[in-house]
């Protein structure tokens, strides 16, 4: 087992990494403090600067209900509630024989209600992760427990269903499937019987490790850190064999044991694609040969048009990946690379350290589970935009082709751009929140918001959340811009202004700004601000270009203002506005 204390000290030494602060309140029905080193280390590795605080042993209900408790002072980003059947259901194992079905059900219902009550306070702004309950390892009913309505299995099932009901009603709640974690690794391995008796410490070293990993998946997703593109090699990665030598019918896919494994690999990748991950090819082959694998081999699960970009050539793969990034207008830190050839992996790793390179296993048997378990593509919500992502990006590529040759004005005129602006659109709150979390380049202040905060702003009468949807002759670009405006007695302030890179360089940003100023009382003043981030240099002078007066600049933060009566809200000819 790894020495996480030492690893943690080492990773803390590295001051060059840019880390994102993250506060987690850990509440539990058992002692879980032994997760600290592993969880801290894994959070650091994932790019966070974590601060963990623990609740008292089995006191979380009281602590959550008490507004003066440490939790409300700590203001965590995430609250983890770790439960276990033996502790949270108290002595059920020992008094189950004395209870009838009805008594058990009402006991369980009360236990679910406690959780529901505890997390229902308006003052909980954090995301809440609750673990479901593990099934008891033993029941006095023995072999017949599972079939009984008054048995322990049934009790835990009812509890876990109750938790799911809570999750469905509350957008800030996620369920960590602890029972599944237990069944994957085995309770005899991830529980520590002796430590449990001695100090109510439930999890063994392995238990702590797998639990920490699962928690990091959630935290990562909650902070919008998922990646967007999976770049794959072809030969011996998507099938066994070399297409240029074996031909489209000679490569192995779909038939025989190895063929079955590769078929699973392709199916898993296709599932990722269906949920919004873009997939691309980098392969050293003759393009015509390689594409024949897709058109002529009937066992192929992935089809040629599932790939958003194909770089089938003889140049270094790092060069191909860079080209893909620029064609898609995405940062290299959105990329994951899969290749069986260690030399290619090394080349990409050293040339492009921001790209995540998958450790391809020696034995192909383990590739399917590795692809299923990798942490990079784990959304907590799936929006319509996510499902349509492939289609949208292919339209983008068509737009870029239209742009080549011809003047910019011609291009804009040909596009037939149409924008729709909405205010406080609760129906799109998931997407709006998601954009505030993942937009980096065109983002004037880079303030990240949680769903709870967004809800509060949309309901606040002095705050307006504007959202922008774009459409053109090639299709829908979807909801791709957000502005948050806060009003006080003599001014309006642009708290946030951000646009997805996909819709830039067509003057939409200017029109969006003008449309918002149209809503404003002309007697007041407009205030705005640019806060530099490592990625938003391109919008440093955005407000200058719109004619706002730069009032001050301290540590790179540029403050602007202008009386609204002096702002002339223009109409850009090539854009049609719907409101």
């Amino acid at each position, binding site marked *: 087992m790894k020495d996480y*204390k030492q690893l943690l000290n080492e990773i803390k030494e590295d001051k060059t990494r840019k880390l994102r602060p993250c506060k987690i309140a850990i509440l539990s029905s058992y*002692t879980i403090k032994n997760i600290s080193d592993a969880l801290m280390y894994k959070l650091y590795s994932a790019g966070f600067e974590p601060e963990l605080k623990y609740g008292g042993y089995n006191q979380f209900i009281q602590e959550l209900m008490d507004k003066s408790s440490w939790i409300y002072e700590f203001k965590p980003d995430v609250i983890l509630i770790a439960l276990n059947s033996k502790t949270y259901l108290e002595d059920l194992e020992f008094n189950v024989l004395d209870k009838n079905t009805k008594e058990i059900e009402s006991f369980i219902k009360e236990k679910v209600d406690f959780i529901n009550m505890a997390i229902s306070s308006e003052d909980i702004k954090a995301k809440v992760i609750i673990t479901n309950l593990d099934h008891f390892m033993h029941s006095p009913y023995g072999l017949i427990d599972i079939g009984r309505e008054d048995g322990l299995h049934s009790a835990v099932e009812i509890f876990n269903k109750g938790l799911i009901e809570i999750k469905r009603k509350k957008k800030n709640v996620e369920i960590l499937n602890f029972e599944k974690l237990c069944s994957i690794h085995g309770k005899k391995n991830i529980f520590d019987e002796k430590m449990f*008796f*001695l*100090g109510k410490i439930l999890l063994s070293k392995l238990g702590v490790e797998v639990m920490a990993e699962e928690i990091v998946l959630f935290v990562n997703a909650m902070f919008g850190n998922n990646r967007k593109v999976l770049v794959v090699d072809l030969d011996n990665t998507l099938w066994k064999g070399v297409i240029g030598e074996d031909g489209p019918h000679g490569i192995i896919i779909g038939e025989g044991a190895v063929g079955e494994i590769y078929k699973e690999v392709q199916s898993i990748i296709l599932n990722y694609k269906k949920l919004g991950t873009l997939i691309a090819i980098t392969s050293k082959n003759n393009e015509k040969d390689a594409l024949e694998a897709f058109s002529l081999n009937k066992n192929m699960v992935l089809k040629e048009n599932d790939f958003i970009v194909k770089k089938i050539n003889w140049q270094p793969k790092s060069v191909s990946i860079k080209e893909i990034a620029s064609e898609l207008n995405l940062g290299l830190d959105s990329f994951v690379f899969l290749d069986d050839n260690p030399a290619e992996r090394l080349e990409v790793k050293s040339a492009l350290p921001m790209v995540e390179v998958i450790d391809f296993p020696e034995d192909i048997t383990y590739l399917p589970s590795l692809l299923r378990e990798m942490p990079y593509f784990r959304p907590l919500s799936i929006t319509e935009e996510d499902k349509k992502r492939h289609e949208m990006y292919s339209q983008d590529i068509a737009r870029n082709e239209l742009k080549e040759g011809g003047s910019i004005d011609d291009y804009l005129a040909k596009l037939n751009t149409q924008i729709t602006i909405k205010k406080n659109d609760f129906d799109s709150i998931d997407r709006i929140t998601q954009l505030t979390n993942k937009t980096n380049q065109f983002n004037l202040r880079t303030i990240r918001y949680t769903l709870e905060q967004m809800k509060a702003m949309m309901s606040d009468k002095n705050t307006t959340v504007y959202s922008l949807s774009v459409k053109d002759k090639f299709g829908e670009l979807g909801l791709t811009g957000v502005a948050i405006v806060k009003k006080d007695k003599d001014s309006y302030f642009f708290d946030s202004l951000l646009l997805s890179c996909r819709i830039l360089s067509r003057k939409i940003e200017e029109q969006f700004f003008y449309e918002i100023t149209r809503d404003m009382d002309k007697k007041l003043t407009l205030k705005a601000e640019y806060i530099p981030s490592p990625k938003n240099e391109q919008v440093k002078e955005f407000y200058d270009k719109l004619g706002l007066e730069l009032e001050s600049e301290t540590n790179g933060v540029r403050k602007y203002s202008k009386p609204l009566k002096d702002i002339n809200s223009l109409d850009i000819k090539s854009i049609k506005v719907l409101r």
Partner: protein
Amino acid sequence: MDTQIKLQVENIIKSVMDVDITKINPDTKFSSIKEWDSFNNLMLISKFQDEFNIEFTAVEIEETQKVKDLFSLIERKVKK
């Protein structure tokens, strides 16, 4: 006690507990050391088990009250 083992034990105590080792003598009771709560004690026990590849019984763990009890327990286990 074997000086090699003693040194190793002291190092582990230092790394897990963050206590000033000079303030500890064989007769010190664990319950008298501020940093030494029951959770830390168990983490320490578990570290000893890993480092020396030994296993303590629940009774042994509960009966260990003083620093010297711990030293002699480890010594006994390691020599077996």
